[in-house]
């Protein structure tokens, strides 16, 4: 039975005067999913998040979040959503604790002891508990970022928008954020809309994603689907002690081989194939039979980065929705 999607947009668009920041965006995110929003600077990611968080009204199209229409039920949407905004948006003259307390109350956590426990839990998780009584103005960039993420989670929202959550974080903190997102989505079925420039984050966390450029959706799908859109198949990379003409000729004669590339100085042979599962054993066997001394075998797939760059470029050349 298909449940209602956690987030759904239909033809969402935003114009600022005559400038179109977001254009005809349509996508669906189901419950418990971590959905990536990728795109170059100025693509319209933050604008999209602002519309979905009911901070600015769309010029066109519609969207629902947590089952509520963003135009008709804005206050319900706000109650059910946690937002990490692009700027940390913290009160610098207030302490970390005062910031958390204000937002906890603003989100309706009326019970004081529950509120305090929740704040403590979050601040401890983000290593900020010992600094809770310091004014935020004294915090480093990364500390502010962590506090802003803690604030986004204060009311334990089921849908969370994160606009570049790992920006400014050290590798360890970035990892703990990734782990947190993973845990909340898998164990507690929280839904995430994640805007990021770190493709490693997207690759690691997002099952599906949309790439947008100049306000338009360029491609939606799983990482696998996006990769396939730019380059079908894989590359088998075989490192040989020595690249031999005979070996190369043998491989070229095999079935299902798209292309063979060699590099004599490094001893690398790169074989493009359509489906590596069925071909790899056969390729390796024939290389060995032809007298090739195999040092290692690697199956390379186009990285998300390659796919991303190609999709964005392609779009730029064509200027139309693919």
């Amino acid at each position: 039975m298909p449940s209602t999607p956690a987030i759904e947009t239909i033809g969402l668009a935003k114009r600022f005067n005559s400038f179109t920041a977001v254009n005809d965006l349509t996508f669906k995110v189901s419950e418990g999913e971590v959905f990536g929003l990728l795109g170059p600077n100025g693509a319209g990611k933050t604008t999209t998040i602002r519309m979905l968080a009911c901070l600015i009204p769309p010029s066109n199209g519609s969207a629902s979040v947590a089952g509520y229409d963003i135009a008709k039920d804005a206050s319900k949407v706000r109650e059910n959503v946690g937002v990490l905004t692009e700027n940390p948006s913290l009160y610098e003259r207030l302490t970390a604790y005062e910031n958390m307390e204000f937002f906890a109350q603003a989100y309706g956590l009326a019970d004081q002891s529950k509120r305090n426990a929740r704040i403590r839990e979050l601040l401890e998780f983000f290593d900020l508990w010992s600094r809770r009584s310091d004014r935020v103005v004294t915090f480093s960039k990364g500390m502010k970022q962590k506090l802003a993420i803690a604030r986004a989670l204060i009311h334990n929202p089921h849908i969370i928008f994160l606009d570049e959550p790992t920006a400014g974080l050290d590798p360890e903190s970035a990892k703990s954020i990734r782990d947190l997102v993973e845990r909340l989505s898998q164990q507690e079925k929280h839904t995430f809309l994640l805007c990021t420039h770190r493709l490693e984050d997207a690759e690691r966390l997002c099952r599906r994603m949309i790439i947008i450029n100049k306000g338009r959706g360029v491609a939606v799908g799983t990482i696998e689907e996006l990769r396939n859109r730019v380059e079908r198949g894989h590359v088998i990379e075989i490192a040989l002690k020595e690249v031999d003409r005979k070996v190369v000729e043998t491989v070229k004669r095999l079935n299902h081989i798209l292309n063979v590339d060699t590099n004599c100085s490094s001893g690398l042979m790169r074989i493009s194939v359509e489906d590596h599962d069925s071909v790899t054993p056969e390729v390796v066997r024939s290389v060995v039979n032809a007298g090739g001394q195999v040092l290692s075998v690697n199956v390379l797939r186009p990285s998300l980065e390659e796919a991303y760059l190609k999709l964005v470029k392609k779009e730029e050349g064509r200027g139309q929705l693919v």
Partner: protein
Amino acid sequence: MKMENVILVFMKDWREIRRNWQIILPVVTIPIVFSVFLPLVTLLIPYLAGTSMSATQGFESLINNLPSQVQLEMAEMTEQQRTIYMIALYFFAPFFLIIPLMASSVLASDSFAGEKERKTIEALLATPISDSELFLGKTMVSFVPAMAVTTLAFALYSVIVNAISFSVFGGRMLLPNLVWLLLIFGVAPTIALAGIGLTVIISARVKGAREAQQISALLLIPIFILLFGQASGAVVLGPLVVMALIGLFVVIDALVIYLGVRLFHREEILSRLA
């Protein structure tokens, strides 16, 4: 509308303001200058100079415009008493309209435009607190301290004036009187609200608190007109003029607050950031 949300916004803004010397300094010092330093200087001169001085010449036309009852009363006064009476009860009155106006617009521009300038508004607007709760909380945080410093300034001023009048008028205390009570508790609040409403309107258009503050200083113009008008004898801050002022500012309040509320929509605030 939930009152606890209004108070929440009020307390949050108040905490921020309290820790901001750029706000506290003008809001506290200007009232002290107007209610303590300037009055001490101007009132002590005729007081110490004694009866030999006839400074009332400058007030001649003003005195002529006073209600006949007050004129009668003044006819029996000495030169010194007359001078002190005029300065204490009439000359300083407009200054006590500058205090609520200045304080409320400094506070409101920080609360409305400042929050936008510091970019904290985005997370605030993402919360379920409604527009009207935000508007009311922020109006209160501009209004309450502005009226507090105005009342406090009036109390200090009354002490100084009464201390001098006590000795000069043989045990008589000049303040508070009806006109001043109307001024402080009738005109001052309506002026403070006008300052807030105008600042809200301006804050929707400008980027920062400073611009908002500078533009809302425009409201000082009518007060200066009053100040000079009174010095030249054209107007007298008697009960009728004060009632008229209250009426005028109530109308202005209704207008600017209506416009302010219409402009204060969360969706507009972020769209217009640019």
